């Protein structure tokens, strides 16, 4: 039984599947959960023209015990499809992670922002979302004096706020201006996205969703109501949609000259 091919997956009830030998109740329960999850993925994947996700190991468990150290989670952003004035990804991120504009642009947190770039010679203009680029060699982690900035084994760059002392050295070091500092006391944060005064934060690539086998909120909303410009997946898995696209299209990273090898790739930029 394999549900790896999402487009053609025909999910039949577990009882009618060929079972080799005696399946223990545990295995059967796992199989059921897997089939259910597979069904959910098929629904999402079959929306017109859009394939939302590509999962390396085909993991679809609800609560995982540990991350996949072989993965390198990344994003591919098609700038040609990123709509002018569209900010679905930004609002989805705000809703998911509980940050918002409070009317203080100097100090408000920004996990993701829409940036307009213009070629001064040709006058060509493009819009693109910029968030933490989840570098393979993150400068923020290099400079962090307490080890709070770190890269998970699966490539997601995070701040361990238990260790962060709020020195903001990482904010200086980040070439993408991706990090924010929280200046004010907060209450009623999202249970899965703790945020607190005196610590630095940035895009987590929706790590709580990734750990559940889901895709980041920005990618989901971009594909449902935005321009369908964003793709999430495992760059290390040659069979994944994102790795194939990165291999066949000419994509670029922002400031590749810095040699930090971001996990976020852009095409048509």
């Amino acid at each position, binding site marked *: 039984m394999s549900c790896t091919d999402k487009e053609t997956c025909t999910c039949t009830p577990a009882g009618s599947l060929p079972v080799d030998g005696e399946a223990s109740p545990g295995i059967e329960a796992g199989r059921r959960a897997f089939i259910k999850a597979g069904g959910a993925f098929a629904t999402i994947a079959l929306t017109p023209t859009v394939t939302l996700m590509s999962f390396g190991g085909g993991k679809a468990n609800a609560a995982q015990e540990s991350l996949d150290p072989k993965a390198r989670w990344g994003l591919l952003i098609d700038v040609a499809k990123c709509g002018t004035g569209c900010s679905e990804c930004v609002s989805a991120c705000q809703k998911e992670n509980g940050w918002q504009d409070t009317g203080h642009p100097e100090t408000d947190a920004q996990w993701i922002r829409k940036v307009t770039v213009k070629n001064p010679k040709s006058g060509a203009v493009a819009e693109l979302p910029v968030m933490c680029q989840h570098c393979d060699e993150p400068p923020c982690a290099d400079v962090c004096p307490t080890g709070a900035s770190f890269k998970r084994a*699966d490539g997601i760059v995070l701040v361990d706020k238990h260790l962060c002392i709020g020195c903001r050295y990482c904010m200086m070091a980040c070439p993408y201006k991706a990090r924010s500092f929280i200046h004010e006391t907060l209450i009623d944060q999202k*249970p899965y996205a703790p945020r607190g005064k005196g610590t630095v934060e940035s895009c987590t690539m929706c790590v709580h969703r990734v750990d559940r086998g889901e895709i980041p909120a920005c990618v989901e909303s971009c594909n449902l109501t935005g321009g369908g410009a964003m793709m999430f997946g495992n760059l290390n898995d040659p069979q994944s949609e994102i790795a194939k696209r990165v291999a066949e299209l000419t994509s670029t990273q922002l400031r590749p000259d810095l040699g930090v090898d971001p996990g976020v790739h852009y095409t048509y930029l």
Partner: protein
Amino acid sequence: MKQRIRQVLATALLAVALGAMAGISWPGMASAGEASIQVAAVPAPAIPEAKPGTECVRDPEFMRRNHMDMLKHKRDLTVHEGNRLPEFSLNECIACHAVKGDDGKNVTVADSRHFCRSCHDYAAVKVDCFQCHASRPEAGDTALQSSPHGMNVLALSEFLKGVQE
């Protein structure tokens, strides 16, 4: 020098306290002595009941002594290794031990009836978890704690071994 002064002060304080307890009446100290006896008799906190039908990962005596180490161990597993199992997670504690306020909503840690505060106020131990973490479950969140923990004994002993390391 400082240490010496501290020692002298501590000894003096101890002597006064002992004197007060023994009922020695110092001039003008009778009322103060009574007051200090009252302070010593602060009643044990009324600990709010957890959500009905739920079962904690360990018995209350164990949790009272060890919850901080368990939470600390679990936090590192979660942040660094992506462990999202519900057992031992702070969110689960919060979901089970939510306390309703007068308005019918769950109270935050700003309210002295909050589960964590009821004990921590008594023990005079400051917690800083809630500077970042939400101190009450999200409104309308039914995903958490829908069923009692089916605690696997083996997993539990493995976890506790990790706590002790």
